[in-house]
């Protein structure tokens, strides 16, 4: 990428992220209006749905390759950390995910797909009225899971981790050296980690709470410490009802 092009791209990204940057600086999490007006209560028992975490290795040439073992490792770290965090959290208890029939599993999968669609919009919408009255949800289609587990809510997680190869890291270093970078090209962006967590009321499908964490560079979900750090950071804002009310409602 030429310097002019990368400067333009950087300017574009900055401009487009401005409205969201303002939002993120206040509180990073979202709280459903029913928790704010107390027509819903925070859940007591939660079940963690199958976690969707993909880890990619990115080469110097920008080729992204999903690494199955790394993805499994990162997923396990997230689940372990999540379990530990939930059970530490006052008033919250984890209920184990039961075995599901083929149809139940298909329904959970489709609800997970709906969840991803909803949170991608919900977390970037920027409309004042939706922030003040956050009312997103995925509908009551997972009620059977509530009956089966006795849980009030489901914790839904998805994440991605991009790990740079040694070649890419080298290119990143060399790309910052004047004159050398004429030959190597502009430095590529290094890896990053992203985890999103949401708590969904199993009876109504209301997205009661959600938060996410994005980390640049050195973070690595395959490292339990890093994964735990991210999960802790995310849950630091749980449920954060009054904080949310103070900033966005009152």
């Amino acid at each position, binding site marked *: 990428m030429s310097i002019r092009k990368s400067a333009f791209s950087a300017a574009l990204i900055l401009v487009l992220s401005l409205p969201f940057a303002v939002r993120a600086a206040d509180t990073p999490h979202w709280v459903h209006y029913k928790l704010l007006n107390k027509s819903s209560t925070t859940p007591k028992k939660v079940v963690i749905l199958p976690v969707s975490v993909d880890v990619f290795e990115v080469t110097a040439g920008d080729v992204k390759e999903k690494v199955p073992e790394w993805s499994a490792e990162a997923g396990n770290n997230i689940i372990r950390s999540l379990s530990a965090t939930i059970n530490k959290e006052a008033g919250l208890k984890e209920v184990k995910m039961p075995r599901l029939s083929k149809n139940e599993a298909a329904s959970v999968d489709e609800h997970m797909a709906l969840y991803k669609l909803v949170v991608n919009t919900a977390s970037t919408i920027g409309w*004042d009225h939706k922030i003040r009255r956050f009312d997103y949800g995925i509908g009551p289609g997972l009620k059977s899971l509530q009956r089966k587990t006795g849980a009030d809510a489901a914790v839904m997680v998805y994440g991605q981790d991009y790990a740079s190869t040694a070649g890419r890291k080298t290119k990143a270093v060399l790309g910052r050296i004047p004159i050398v970078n004429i030959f190597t090209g502009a430095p590529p962006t290094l890896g990053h980690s992203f985890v999103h967590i949401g708590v969904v009321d199993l009876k109504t499908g209301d997205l009661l709470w959600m938060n996410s964490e994005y980390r640049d560079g050195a973070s690595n979900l395959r490292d339990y410490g890093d994964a735990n750090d991210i999960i802790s950071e995310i849950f630091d804002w749980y449920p954060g009802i009054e904080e949310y009310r103070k900033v966005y409602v009152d």
Partner: protein
Amino acid sequence: MMKKILTLIGSVLLSSGCAQTAYWTMTDDMNPVAKSTSFEMTIPEGWVRTTQPETWERIDIDGELQTVLLESMAVTYDGLGIHGISVTRRYSDTAFPTIKKKSTANMLPLEAADLYVAELRKRSGLERLKVLSNKPAKVGGKQAFELVMQYKNDDGLRIKIMTYGFVDKTGFYTISYRAPYLYYYDRDYAKFKKLVSSFRQLKGAFDPPPKIPAWAKLFT
């Protein structure tokens, strides 16, 4: 260079639209009717709609980006990323631009429906778009089609689309509702039907079509 500056300016304008409501208008009991040049309809309370209609779009026709005139308004409650209603008028000459077909005043709704589905499939690359039903209907007193379609996205989420469409000498009109089959489609179905029944064509529909704005030609 000019193109990039304009893109950046456009992005600033759009961002400000994202942060405020310059691009979007909230509907309440004081402003329930959304009006465009050719049509108007009543929007459900609490939904947002585009403040002004889009008057042109850039589409890929046989590998070349072309600017096509239209008149289109979008309506949504939760955001277009999840669901939405779009009301569009296309001019006769570019009624089905990707398949390069025109609409004619005496075109039957069934014929328009067939072309519309082919246009959708080609434009979106969604060969797997299924037609669940295709029935005659009436919109604004005119003979129309009612299409119900469905496809699954890459995550396996079923997306359902209901489209009403009619043709007259002023062009091809569609009122389309797209939402995930799970929860959203049924939730807002009645509101969509109410919007459709409120649709009215306006006298402005019979005005000569506008020209592509000079600044938009910079993108050609």
